[in-house]
C-alpha cells in the first residue's frame, strides 16, 4: 500500500472499520511511514474517546457481585514489585516542585502592594497594575470559584505572564487548614496533576507564585493535603479551566 492509499484509509482504520486484510495492509504501511504512524495514533486516540459520548446506564445491582465472584475465581497474572517499579519508572513524569512563594521580582516592587493585594483580595489586578503596567499584552487573567460544597466562597485570581512563564495567584476564602495540613497547588496536563508547591494560611487567604508554561496545561487546582504530595490524595477544593481565560 502506498502513502496516498493509506492516507485515505486512516480514519476508517482508527475507527476499526476496515476489513481485516485491509487493516493489515494499512499496518504494514504504518511500520515504514512515521508521518502516517503519528496521524494514525492521533486519530485512534480521538476514536478512543467515543465511548465517553454515551450516557451511563443502570446495570442490575447483582452485576457487581457477579463480577467480583468471577474475578475471585480467576487467577491474575501478577508482576513482582521490582518489575512493576521499573516499568512505572520508565513512564512516570511527575516532577517534584518546591514550595512556591512570591517571586523576588514581586517582592522587590513593594511589600505594601503585595500585602494589600493579599489581605484585601483585591486581587492581583492591583498588584500587577502597580508593578507591571508596561507589559499588559503578555498577561492572561483568570478568576476561579471554589467547589460549591468543599470551598464555598473561595475565589482564586490568577494572572499569567507569558514572557516569564510565571503566574501569580491570590486566593481568598479557602477552608481553614487542620493541624499539619497544607494547601497544595496543581497544574493539570491531560488529566495528570503536576505539583506546583504548597502553602499555608491562618485565615484562608494566600498569594503565591506558580512557575511553568501555562499554555501546556488545561487546569489549575488546589487540594488540601497532609503535607506536600507528589500527586493529590484528596479531591480538589477548587478547579479552574486555564484554556477559558480572557486576556
Amino acid at each position, binding site marked *: 500500500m502506498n502513502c496516498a492509499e493509506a492516507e485515505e484509509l486512516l*480514519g476508517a482504520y482508527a475507527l476499526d472499520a476496515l476489513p481485516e486484510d485491509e487493516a493489515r495492509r494499512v499496518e504494514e504501511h504504518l511500520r515504514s511511514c512515521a508521518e502516517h504512524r503519528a496521524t494514525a495514533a492521533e486519530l485512534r486516540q480521538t476514536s478512543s*474517546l467515543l465511548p465517553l459520548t454515551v450516557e451511563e446506564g443502570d446495570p442490575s445491582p447483582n452485576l457487581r457481585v457477579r463480577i467480583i465472584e468471577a474475578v475471585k475465581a480467576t487467577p491474575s497474572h501478577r508482576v513482582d514489585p521490582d518489575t512493576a517499579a521499573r516499568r512505572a519508572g520508565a513512564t512516570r513524569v511527575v516532577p517534584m516542585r518546591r514550595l512556591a512563594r512570591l517571586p523576588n521580582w514581586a517582592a522587590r516592587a513593594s511589600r505594601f502592594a503585595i500585602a494589600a493585594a493579599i489581605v484585601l483580595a483585591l486581587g492581583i489586578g492591583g498588584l500587577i497594575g502597580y508593578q507591571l503596567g508596561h507589559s499588559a499584552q503578555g498577561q492572561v487573567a483568570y478568576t476561579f470559584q471554589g467547589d460549591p460544597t468543599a470551598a464555598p466562597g473561595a475565589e482564586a485570581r490568577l494572572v499569567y505572564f507569558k514572557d516569564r512563564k510565571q503566574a501569580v495567584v491570590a486566593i481568598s476564602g479557602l477552608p481553614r487548614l487542620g493541624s499539619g495540613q497544607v494547601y497544595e497547588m496543581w497544574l493539570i496536563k491531560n488529566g495528570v496533576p503536576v505539583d506546583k508547591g504548597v502553602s499555608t494560611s491562618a485565615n484562608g487567604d494566600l498569594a503565591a507564585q506558580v512557575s511553568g508554561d501555562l499554555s501546556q496545561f488545561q487546569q489549575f487546582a488546589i487540594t488540601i493535603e497532609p503535607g506536600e504530595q507528589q500527586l493529590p490524595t484528596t479531591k480538589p477544593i477548587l478547579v479552574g479551566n486555564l484554556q477559558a481565560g480572557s486576556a
Partner: protein
Amino acid sequence: MAAQLKRGESTAIESLYDRYGRLAYGLAFRILNERGAAEDVVQDAFVSVWRHAAGFDASRGSLRNWLLSIVRNRAIDRLRGSARIRTELELVEAEPRAEVPDVWEAVALDLERKQIQEGFNELPDPQRRTLELAYFGGYTHVEIAGRMEVPLGTVKSRMRIGLEKMRTFLTARGAMG
C-alpha cells in the same frame, strides 16, 4: 488503581467497577440494546482486565480507555457474531502518562465527558452518523457506504474529517493535548 491491579489485588476491580461500571454498561447497552447481553459483556470485560492487568502499560493509554475498548470490541463481536482479530490499544497515545490517583480521575472524567459529548454533537449529521455506525454499529466502511447510499470515498473522508474535527474541538478546549 492500575498498580493495585498489577499486584493482583482484587479490590482494585471493585474500585474500577464503582467508577466505570455504569459507563461500561452504558456503552455495552448502546451497542447491544439488550440488558442481559450488555451485562454479560461488561462482566467479560472486567474479568479480562483482571486477567491481563500485568500486561497493562500506562504509557499506551489509560486504564479506563483500555476497559472501554474491551467492552466495545466484545459487544461488537457479539452483535456481529464474529470475533475479529484486533490489536487493542495498539498505537494509542504516544505521550506517556503518569498514573493518576483514583480520587482525581472521577473529577476529571466528568469535565472530560461533557466536552467530548459537546464535540461529538457539534459534528454535522452525516459525519456523526458515520462515526456512530462504525464505532457503535461495528460496520465497515463498505457496509456504511451501502447503508447510507453514498460513495465509499465519501464515507472514508467523513470518518477522517469527523475525527479530526472532534480532535480540533477538544484541543481548543484543552481536553486533548
